[in-house]
């Protein structure tokens, strides 16, 4: 109990009577839930509108936006049609060859591949910058960070030319290879590794560990919150890429989910139902991933004085 340190709330003063103790924690609880509820409303309202919008008939989506009533949120006619359409499970979706399931699988494959290689390559790179001895290391780090500084719109076409000259276009490789190392992740991990006490690796080296050994047995176990966080951010970054897959990949079989969603805007019509359903399908897996992973990066603080 005591070891779980207090971050946000007072520790009860030892001599306090059990009543003041109770009152204090009750006030803390009220404060926490009230503020939490306000934050929740600000965040959930737009999102709820999107989710419930995806469960409406398309013509309803913008029908009840105003005046503001409960109808603005709750569908008049509940319908799974938008989802069936985008998954190609309805006659309409089928006749137009919609297959968001495939797009989701493509995106998951590409994002997972990038995260996997990124965890290896970037951790090694960050270890280099945080711990190893090398001349002009500061300059090299600048060289790495500088790659983030130019607007992607300016380098997209040259990158496409590079990818074409390597004959990678229109393949999964075009979506994976350019991103297998990330300046953002390296820069992040340099900070997280920097926070690990140096004495730990020095001790390991005295015990005869190699660099790889230090990395495996000292750095990685101690950098888990940083690794998980950057992996998650890298995952959502690749997951949400739009312009690059649009330019680099043409074939429908390789389409990613963001491109598939964008394809529902045509010159003359916007298929809002499909866009809302697609957007729900695209965000839910990553939110679940976020939930599953949070024990790795959330510091648990047990509420003091709280019984049950």
């Amino acid at each position, binding site marked *: 109990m005591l070891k779980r340190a207090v971050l946000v709330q007072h520790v009860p003063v030892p001599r306090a009577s059990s009543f003041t103790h109770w009152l204090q924690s009750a006030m803390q609880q009220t404060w926490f839930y009230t503020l939490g509820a306000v934050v929740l409303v600000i965040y959930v309202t737009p999102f709820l509108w999107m989710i419930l919008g995806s469960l409406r008939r398309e013509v309803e989506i913008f029908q009840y936006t105003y005046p503001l009533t409960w109808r603005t949120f709750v569908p008049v006619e509940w319908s799974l049609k938008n989802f069936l359409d985008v998954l190609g499970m309805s006659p309409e979706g089928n006749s137009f060859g919609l297959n968001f399931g495939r797009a989701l699988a493509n995106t998951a494959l590409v994002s997972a591949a990038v995260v996997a290689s990124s965890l290896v390559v970037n951790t090694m790179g960050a270890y280099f910058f945080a711990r190893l001895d090398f001349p002009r290391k*500061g300059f090299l780090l600048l060289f790495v960070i500088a790659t983030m500084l130019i607007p992607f719109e300016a380098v997209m076409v040259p990158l496409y030319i590079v990818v074409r000259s390597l004959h990678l276009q229109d393949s999964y490789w075009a979506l994976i290879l350019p991103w297998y190392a990330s300046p953002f992740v390296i820069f992040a991990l340099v900070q997280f590794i920097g926070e690990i006490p140096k004495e730990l690796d020095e001790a390991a080296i005295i015990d005869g560990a190699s660099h790889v050994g230090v990395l495996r047995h000292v750095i990685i176990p101690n950098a888990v919150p940083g690794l998980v966080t950057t992996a998650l951010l890298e995952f959502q970054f690749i997951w949400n890429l739009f312009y690059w897959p649009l330019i680099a990949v043409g074939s429908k079989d390789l389409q990613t989910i963001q491109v598939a969603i964008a394809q529902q805007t045509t010159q003359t019509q916007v298929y809002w139902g499909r866009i809302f359903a697609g957007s729900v399908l695209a965000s839910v897996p990553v939110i679940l991933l976020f939930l599953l992973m949070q024990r790795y990066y959330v510091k648990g603080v047990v509420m003091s004085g709280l019984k049950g």
Partner: protein
Amino acid sequence: MDAMWARIWAGFTVLLVVVLVASLFAGALTPAQASPPQVSPAASQSQVAQTKAKVVLKLLAITDDAQINAWKEILDEFHKIDGGKWAYVDIAFETVPFQDLFPKIESAVAAGSDMDMVQSDGPDMKHYAFYRSLIPLDKFFTADEKKQWLPQSIEEGSYRGVLYGPPMMQSCSLLMYNKQMTDAAGIKPPQTLGTSWTMAEALKAWQKTTTRPSGSSVPSVWGLRWGQGTWVGDYEHGIFRRSNGAKGSPTYNGVGPDGITFVGYMDTPESIEAMQFYQDLHRKYKVTPIEAIPQIFETRKSAFMVTPDNRIGELNRLYGEGKFPWGVTGIPYFKSQLCHTGSWHYGISPNTKHFDEAMAYVKFASSDAGARIWYKHVRQLPANVALLNTLPEYRPGASQAIWVEAMTKVGVPRIQTPGYTEYQQVFAEVSLNIIAGADVAEQMKAGAQRAQQLVAKYKGWK
């Protein structure tokens, strides 16, 4: 610590110098050198096996389910013509959303992609032709064959009098309305083109159909949405300024005869007067929302909408065939009535290695037979005169007849210049500023100057 930062700053300087010098040598990345004729395994096989092996034409097209189905059925029929001569041709579709087609084509051209056919937007044809991104197809069509299309389509598809691509279809924006709402307001929109409302007359109808619940300043139904979607493109919004000039006047022409002069054409007193009216529609009469609302007409929140006939297809999709009570009347005008025309064209890329096959496909697709299949799926005003004359819905007296009449009598192409994209960006920004309440004269004058600067690089294109 400071020594480390001194090193970093020194490194920073070195980095800049290295980058600048190296950039001079980075010429290896120009496509001409970077992509020597790449013979992919598939391509070399097809060359070895001569004609019988499968040829796959790469097609860059816009995302549109109905259009893709049309391309596919045309391909099926194409396989059957000339005794099955073209049965070895297949098409690989690459589709991108409308607003990304232009960047996608540019990226493909810049990287030397091996695409064969490109779906090209009418107003961009001169742009592509200027940059030699399309092959001129003029000599593959006889004068008689060219007569099968509307003259506006020929003008839009041509550059310096040479046809670069035959049309897929045509369009012309008219004033559609929700019959229930006009009936409720006791309004009978004119049913022939000749009796179309002027802007002042139409304004009365828009005011009458704008309904505000008692006690509220916000309409529950607006009178008007001018234009498809929520943008302010030149296709519909550019009509205001041109309509306020007499036929042949600088205001009506919209751009100088050289296709690059906007000062004296876009910022005339008539043009400014028209755009003042445009501002008043939003801010003074309040018959149309200042900030656009998605699907406003489709969700029965506006009584009138200026749109081409492709809206009918969407209404049918949303409500079921014929369930939405729409009507249509001529487009309102100040001095001269006009609707902007134009739609998509077939284009062949100079990078193609299968010109004969692509050309044969384009020729078939743009013929009567191809246009008929296209119409079956897409249901938009055909550019093919023979087809137009046989479709029942466009016959005199039928529900969509007024579109044909408007097309032939008041349909004019958008301003013809290779700098159309540049102009349209400026015009849309100016229009948004005007809606937001900026000074109209100031905006139109600055916009004309800016557009003229941006297109100055096309000097002498005609």
